[in-house]
């Protein structure tokens, strides 16, 4: 059993959860993820490691409630336990030897981008961060980012907070202002990572993206997380989740991520119905 030490809401549908799991805490590095199951019959949900505390043996993740599985997770509170928790999985993000990096986070992807930015910052790398959100009420981790960034731009799609526009607008502006990055690291919705990669390709800036295809085991057994990178099949859970953004076939990943749309919709409705019954 893996005890929930703390649960903190960050915005109206995003929360941080801290889990007691000393063996995972000892090993987890930025860019890696865990897979958890809230209850005995739950789905396996992959979530990026947001923070670890090796002293207390805890691991934190930030999750957004998007469907039945994450809603079930969200129904638990501090003091409860998760049924299963395994990790750290995947390869850590490579941060060594970089001098100047632009870290881009989109929505809940900012939670995964933060440990990368912090690790770069701690290694003396110059960090520019662009954090994009739909609107004001979705903004998370602004203060955390400001502490580890030499420059922080918060963007909202509707201009209700920070600057008006997409993360690619901010990136283009920075590049045009003459900033030369060794690398861009983008973590967020697939469409965002796709457009960041298209932009950086034009400018010849190496770009690393963190892919989150649908996964089952997360150990390289099922092949469900496969994607095409540079014309070759790769498994995101063992070869990634980080890949060269200029090599990833985004359209294919985007299409595959919709494989269970119908099922997910049904589950979500079913789940809401049960939820309403409980409340009544």
């Amino acid at each position, binding site marked *: 059993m893996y005890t929930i030490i703390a649960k903190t809401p960050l915005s109206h549908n995003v929360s941080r959860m801290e889990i007691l799991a000393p*063996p*995972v805490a000892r*090993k987890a590095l930025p860019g890696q993820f865990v897979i958890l*199951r809230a209850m005995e*019959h*739950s*789905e*396996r949900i992959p979530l990026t490691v947001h923070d670890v505390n090796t002293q207390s043996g805890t691991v934190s993740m930030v999750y957004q409630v998007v469907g*039945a*599985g994450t809603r*079930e997770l969200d129904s638990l509170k501090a003091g409860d336990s998760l*049924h*299963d*928790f*395994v*990790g*750290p*999985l995947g390869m850590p993000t490579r941060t060594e030897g970089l001098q100047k990096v632009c870290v881009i986070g989109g929505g809940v992807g900012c939670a995964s981008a933060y440990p990368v930015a912090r690790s770069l910052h701690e290694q003396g790398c110059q960090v520019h961060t662009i954090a994009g959100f739909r609107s004001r009420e979705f903004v998370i981790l602004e203060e955390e980012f400001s502490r580890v960034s030499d420059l922080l731009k918060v963007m909202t799609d509707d201009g209700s907070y920070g600057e008006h526009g997409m993360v690619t607008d901010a990136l283009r502006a920075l590049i045009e202002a003459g900033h030369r990055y060794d690398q861009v690291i983008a973590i967020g919705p697939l469409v965002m990572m796709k457009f960041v990669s298209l932009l950086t390709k034009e400018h010849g800036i190496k770009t690393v993206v963190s892919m989150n295809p649908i996964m*089952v*085991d997360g*150990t*390289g*057994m*099922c*092949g*469900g997380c*496969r*994607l*095409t990178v540079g014309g070759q*099949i790769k*498994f995101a859970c*063992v070869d990634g989740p980080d890949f060269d953004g200029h090599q990833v*076939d985004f359209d*294919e990943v985007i*299409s*595959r991520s*919709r*494989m*269970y749309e119908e*099922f*997910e919709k049904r*589950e979500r409705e079913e789940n809401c119905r049960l939820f309403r019954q409980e409340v009544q």
Partner: protein
Amino acid sequence: MERNMSLHKVPMPSQDPQERIGNFQEVALGYTQEMAMQEAARCLSCRHRPCVEGCPVRIDIPGFISQIARGNMEEAYLILNRDSALPAVCGRVCPQESQCEQKCVRAVKGEAVAIGRLERYAADWYRHSACEVPPRPQPNGHKVAVVGAGPGGLTAAGELARMGYAVTVFEALHLPGGVLSYGIPEFRLPKDIVMDEVEALRRLGVEIRLNTVIGKTLTVDELLQRFEAVFIASGAGLPRFMGIPGETLKGVYSANEYLTRINLMKAYQEDASTPVMRGHHVAVVGGGNVAMDAARCARRLGAQEVSIVYRRSMKELPARQEEVHHAQEEGIIFRMLTNPVRVLGDDKGWVRGLECVRMTLGEPDATGRRRPVEQPGSNHELSADVVIIAIGTSSNPLIRLTTPGLETDRRGGIVVTGPEGLTSRDRVYAGGDVVTGSATVIQAMGAGKDAARAIDRMIRAGQAPDETMI
């Protein structure tokens, strides 16, 4: 006792094909005591015991069968259990026709003695009878780690625990059993049986640490600091794909993913939280047990048409005969000498079919099987809304990449120096599919058993138990 000279095995009662394609309950229902005794009476108790030679773990076959013939079921079970930790499993899933039963003298004229069915009978009898729980063995003060809770790892753990070792099994998934849990479906191997066997190991004192990936959560070197030996039985690894266009379309699965969703995550149950696509026309590429299991699952999930697409002929199908037979009864179509060259998709990225070519069999290749050769101009389309690829596996890199000095072969499989499973690393042993590539349950068990004995010898030859380890 009257010998039964019938040329045929006592038939196995089984669920009616029309009925069973609507459920996931076990297909073969098992012998009654009367049937078992009648079948046991077909064994001639041959002096030279050819059948035993065919069994990878050398079960005393005439020995246990003659006990069944006399109605001594507990004795029969105890004989089986001397050489096999999981007789209820092997009796169900061993490819008997190419192992023990292949060597049976009764097969010269007529059918072999139904060794597998009798093994299953004795094991099930034991499971259902309240027999005494064997006493917990006296601890010997030594600790051994096992990686992977599949048949190889569980067998090694059981052997070592019975010798008094404190054994910890590290398993990546949230359930033990390996392929027995996530691969082989309920209708062929009820999961209760696997869980009962695991429970029996826990009663022996074996600790099973789930949700622990060796190479990630802990490394082999870290295990070596806490344990005197490590046995790696992490299984066959990553699924292989064909490398043809369209394999990433929506609706294309590897058999591992498809079966894991169904078996491990219970996607066949109405209220499951993990989805699986239920197609109307399902094409399964491959001809082994894995392909049969996937095809038969698809049928049970409601597909109207399920076909096996295989590039050789019926004769070369590597699957167990019984599975092929059951699949045929269930209406699975066998498209032999057919090879896919492209997965076809629609404009929304969903699979809509397979483009295939016909094959003919040419000269025998290195494996002795005739090599399939493409017939030019034979391209044709097969419609399918789900395609499942079951063409084998290649090795998983997690342990290889994190264990310096561990020698692996060209395929990435762990190299062992002999039948006992010692690897190029001191105190590290390996066995089962991770060494041989996809093989059989009983071979993995045999490897687990051999390694357990070798580990015991190695540890006993070493120094007295370290006090801190007790």
